[in-house]
């Protein structure tokens, strides 16, 4: 029987190592998919070990477990398969929230048992409360992040002046309540535990509220590291090494990933959490008033593209919104058939999640060698006849290079003005994510084609066909 326990522990060990090594492989394009599968197998081994491990008592209740697992996997699987490629971040956010919720549920049950008289080890109460509040914050935070990403909640509906102060106060109250509950020891009660739980749920919501909707990918990564930490805390309750190690590992990985994402946008995590962007927009907008904009029609653009030698498309968030990737690929095909050299310039933070554009274009079967990264694109622009910017804005804003007072100053951009001509396809002159005006629109080299990205691209393609 001792031998059996050891085997169970070995399964846990192998599972944990597979998870670590799997996530490691996820970090490199060649091995990413295999890495994900390995991590999944590792998780499966962990679950297997938890199912077969010998326990001191209890009735096993495998029926409940298998039932719950079946329901959960089915929902998870179907949701993951059905979700649209563009709605992935929302999905991840919901999933993450559920992980946090699980930690909350565990903590509440353990607290109930504790107050019913079941003893807890010395650090048991601390870690239970940690699992409770971290899980709680992660749960509601993730849900709000989902709602914001999905456009169901608009930033302006959940923000107000002085919010950051209110948040700080809320955080302190929540922590104080948790500490008080800890001090009470066995004299605590479920009622008090419920209060702590509610406070953590409220704080999770209010923590995410002031953060701009477009920053949600970063926030999800941060909340994901919270879920990891709550899992690790829960692991300490059960003395389960796989949960502890896996949770801590994800906590660390999520934290550094969050920082990396912020770096890619040239912003600090602090700046993101405090709600960043948007403040200086109104004043700066005035500067461009009175400047003129040159417009172009679909037919003219079709002709211009048709007779070019080289064209580079710069896709942005608007392409994703308009679902214009397939139309763009068709236009590309038509042009390529006629000997035009067509490429795509992918800015690392174009769109709303890292790799957003790569994923969209891959979905539309654009071959990989046609995609230029930031440096390649900037090297290619000087030899390019026309750069067509499709629903992108911030990533081609020259203010990031020229204007030290701009909030995006310092962010590396696609330097499209190095090309002979540029055309921007978007619906209006309104600003993008960072909420700042774009001098490119008013540049003599540039022409604007106003309209929905998909509609316009389709029209241009039709015109090219007629030529």
């Amino acid at each position, binding site marked *: 029987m001792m031998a059996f326990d050891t085997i169970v522990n070995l399964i846990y060990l192998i599972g944990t190592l597979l998870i670590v090594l799997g996530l490691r492989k996820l970090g490199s394009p060649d091995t990413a*998919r295999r890495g994900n599968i390995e991590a999944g197998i590792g998780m499966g081994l962990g679950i297997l070990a938890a199912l077969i491990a010998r326990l001191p*008592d209890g009735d096993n*209740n495998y029926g409940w477990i298998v039932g*719950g697992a079946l329901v*959960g996997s089915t929902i*998870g699987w179907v949701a993951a398969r059905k979700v649209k490629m563009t709605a992935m971040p929302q999905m991840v956010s919901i999933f993450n929230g559920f992980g946090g919720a699980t930690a909350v549920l565990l903590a509440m049950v353990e607290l*109930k048992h504790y107050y019913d008289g079941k003893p807890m080890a010395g650090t048991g109460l601390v870690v239970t409360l940690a699992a409770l509040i971290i899980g709680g914050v992660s749960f509601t935070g993730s849900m709000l992040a989902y709602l914001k990403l999905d456009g169901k909640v608009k930033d302006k509906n959940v923000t107000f002046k002085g919010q950051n102060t209110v948040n700080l106060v809320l955080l302190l109250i929540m922590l104080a309540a948790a500490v008080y509950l800890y001090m009470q020891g066995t004299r605590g009660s479920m009622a008090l535990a419920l209060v702590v739980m509610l406070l953590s749920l409220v704080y999770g919501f209010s923590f995410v509220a002031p953060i701009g909707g477009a920053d949600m*990918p970063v926030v999800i*990564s941060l909340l994901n590291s919270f879920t990891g930490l709550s899992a690790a805390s829960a692991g300490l309750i059960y003395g389960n090494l796989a949960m502890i190690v896996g949770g801590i590992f994800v906590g660390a990985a999520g934290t550094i990933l969050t920082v990396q994402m912020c770096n890619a946008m040239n912003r600090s995590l602090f700046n993101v959490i405090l709600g960043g962007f948007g403040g200086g927009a109104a004043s700066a907008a005035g500067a461009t008033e009175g400047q003129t904009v040159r417009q172009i029609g679909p037919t003219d653009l079709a002709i211009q593209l048709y007779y070019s030698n080289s064209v580079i498309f710069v896709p942005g968030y608007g392409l994703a919104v308009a679902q214009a990737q397939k139309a763009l690929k068709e236009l590309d095909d038509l042009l390529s058939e006629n000997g035009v050299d067509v490429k795509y310039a992918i800015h690392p933070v174009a769109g709303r999640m890292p790799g957003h554009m790569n994923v969209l274009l891959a979905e539309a079967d654009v071959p990989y060698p046609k995609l230029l990264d930031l440096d390649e694109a900037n090297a290619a622009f000087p030899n390019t006849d026309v750069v067509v910017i499709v629903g992108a804005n911030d990533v081609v804003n020259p203010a990031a290079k020229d204007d030290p007072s701009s909030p995006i100053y310092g962010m590396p951009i696609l330097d499209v003005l190095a090309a002979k001509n540029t055309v921007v396809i978007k619906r209006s002159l309104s600003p993008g994510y960072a909420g700042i005006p774009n001098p490119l629109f008013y540049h003599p080299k540039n022409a604007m084609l106003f309209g929905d990205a998909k509609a316009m691209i389709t029209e241009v393609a039709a015109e090219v066909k007629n030529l």
Partner: protein
Amino acid sequence: MEDLLAFFRDNLYMIYILAFAVILGFEIISKVPTVLHTPLMSGANAVSGIVIIGAILLVREAKADDYFTLGIGFLGIVLGMINVMGGFAVTDRMLEMFKKKKKAD
């Protein structure tokens, strides 16, 4: 202070493990290319669903008539499993997209 020392004494090995897990987590993620941030986030999210193990243990340790624990535990397993299964499946779908590109390379 005494408490803290006692904690360190009793959990020395555990502390080594935690320290190494943290360093490894940092080390493995730093220097990952931007395009993989989203799949990585999603993969890490799936792994954080490891809390499901706790829910399984909770239900297994419960008496068959302890409906409070069983009910909450059941809910925990459902939610945790959505996190795990959905997380890995969605990550795989994202990476499928990337693989397509590879072939064209």
